């Protein structure tokens, strides 16, 4: 009964379409008698996550209250400085500017990815088998492309001299673009990063969405056309309700992924020009590791995590509600 898709986007629908729970009697027999078993099965996952993720997180919070530079790091010194790092970060203009920039960056990218990803997913469902496999192949390759390889390829595509993009723009009559340096301004650098991110992120959304549409029973469409529903009506009353949970979970994942995107932004132009394309993760990295203000970097990273939690809290609440209903 459950949909199999290569992605966590399946969760939502899987939750919905899962076979209704077996009658309580049978249920109890096989599930409550499990006793300590579930905890034992979960132990390795919980232990390794607690040690290797939980510990660095706690350590990060501790470091954010310390004066930690190169000297302290090498000599293993612990110098507490209270909330100085936080007052420095929150008192300056940089953090707020970067936060706002990161939010706009995330919103624009996620909107583009979800819009085009959904449209391409629906297109995949409409195509014939051969054409679909052809398009799927290109999507899968774009999806699989390693980030650092993608950034070098995009630097080459958008290269000032001999880059294909500038050549095309020039041929199309936009002659001032012939030797345009895409990394020279904030907007154009973000443009390149966005094109690359959208290119590499769409396949996940499109393929998952297509997988979702294959689970819609044909009878529903037949019934809709018998009722005289047109294309849009069929979409909004048959397709949309079905793919809504997918869109929900995928949007959630994309927000996290785009917000966290580090190598994409960092490798294209190092956060430049003039640090104008630093998003929060890059800002934390450049301040902390790059400028060797490790304590400050830790404070920024704590704040970054809080911003991310804030942005996704609505989704987490919704998913939590869904889980409660399921169990």
């Amino acid at each position, binding site marked *: 009964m459950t949909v*199999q898709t290569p*992605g966590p986007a399946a969760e939502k629908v899987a939750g919905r379409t899962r076979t209704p729970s077996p009658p309580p009697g049978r249920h109890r027999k096989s599930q409550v008698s499990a006793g300590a078993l*579930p905890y034992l099965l979960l132990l390795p996952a919980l232990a390794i996550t607690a040690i290797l993720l939980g510990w660095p997180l706690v350590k990060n919070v501790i470091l954010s209250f310390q004066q930690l530079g190169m000297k302290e790091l090498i000599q293993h010194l612990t110098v507490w400085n209270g909330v100085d790092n936080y007052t420095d970060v929150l008192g300056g203009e940089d953090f707020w500017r970067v936060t706002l920039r990161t939010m706009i960056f995330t919103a624009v990218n996620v909107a583009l990815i979800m819009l085009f990803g959904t449209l391409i997913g629906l297109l995949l469902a409409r195509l014939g088998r051969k054409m679909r496999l052809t*398009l799927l192949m290109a999507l899968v*390759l774009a999806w*699989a492309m390693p980030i650092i390889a993608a950034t070098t*390829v995009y630097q*080459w595509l958008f290269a000032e001299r001999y880059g294909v993009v500038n050549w095309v723009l020039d041929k199309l009559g936009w002659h001032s673009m012939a030797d345009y340096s895409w990394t020279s301004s904030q907007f154009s650098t973000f443009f390149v990063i966005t094109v690359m991110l959208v290119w590499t992120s769409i396949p996940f959304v499109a393929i998952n969405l297509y997988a979702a549409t294959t689970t819609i029973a044909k009878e529903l469409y037949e019934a809709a056309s018998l009722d005289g529903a047109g294309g849009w009506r069929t979409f909004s009353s048959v397709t949309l309700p079905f793919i809504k949970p997918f869109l929900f979970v995928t949007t959630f994942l994309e927000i996290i992924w785009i917000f966290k995107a580090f190598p994409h932004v960092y490798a294209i132009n190092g956060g430049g020009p003039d640090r104008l394309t630093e998003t929060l993760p890059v800002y934390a990295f450049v301040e902390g590791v790059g400028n060797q203000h490790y304590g400050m970097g830790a404070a920024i990273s704590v704040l970054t995590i809080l911003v991310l939690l804030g942005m996704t809290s609505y989704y987490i609440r919704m998913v939590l509600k869904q889980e409660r209903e399921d169990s």
Partner: protein
Amino acid sequence: MKRSLFGRFWPNATALVLFALFLFPVYWMFATSFKPRGDILSDDPVWFPVDPTFEHYRTAFDADNFWNFWQNSLTVTLLAVGCSLLIALFASFAIARMRFRGRTGVILLFMFAQMAPWEVMVISVYMLVRDADMLNSLVPLTLFYTVMVLPLTILTLRTYVAAVPKDLEEAAMVDGATRTQAFRKVIFPLLAPGLMATSLFGFITAWNEFALVLVVNKEAEAQTLPLWLSQFQTNFGDDWGATMAAASLFSLPILLLFLYLQRKVTAGLTAGAVKG
């Protein structure tokens, strides 16, 4: 459903344009890597490597013992994906098949873990690895990558586990199979496409990881391919042929893996769809 010629033309035309758009960067990488210098630096792009050369690949192979980085990347990625699949398999069985106190909490925990922005925590990771005296080693790298891909692996795998009919397992056990046998003979083959699909996420994440290895492993002997490529690009800068050859070498394994697995995954998909 009947469709007019018009209705069939536009989807196909759009699909072709999209095909070209999505494939072009990948194609351009490979094409450039085979083109002689003169064809790369030409005022009008040379669309096909009409006069292929292996010169750029030679440059790439000769640079900074490529094979060592390659071996490191492969080792760390395979081990991390393998470990996380194994650990996730146990965990997703518990989550998908059993009711227990704290189940929602566990799911929530892995959702949070999946959100962890590792790049901003590199300083504390560095200090932990240093204090354990394990800098410049593949062991901590493997462990951290395992934890990095674990949450999403669990969250994805549990939907596949939930999809395997419970009756099958019970039927096998009624037929005298032990729980382990039932798992190995009945459940595992059914889960295989799910495991493959899930492993793809792990492969991308581990193969791509950049910030952690950059900070934790300063010695070239313990570094991985993303650093090699980034270093290569710094050294060769405008030699786009060599850079594209290096990028091709870095991407090829994962591109092939995806193409190969995609068919299996799609087969799993349709099977699921038929059942639905």
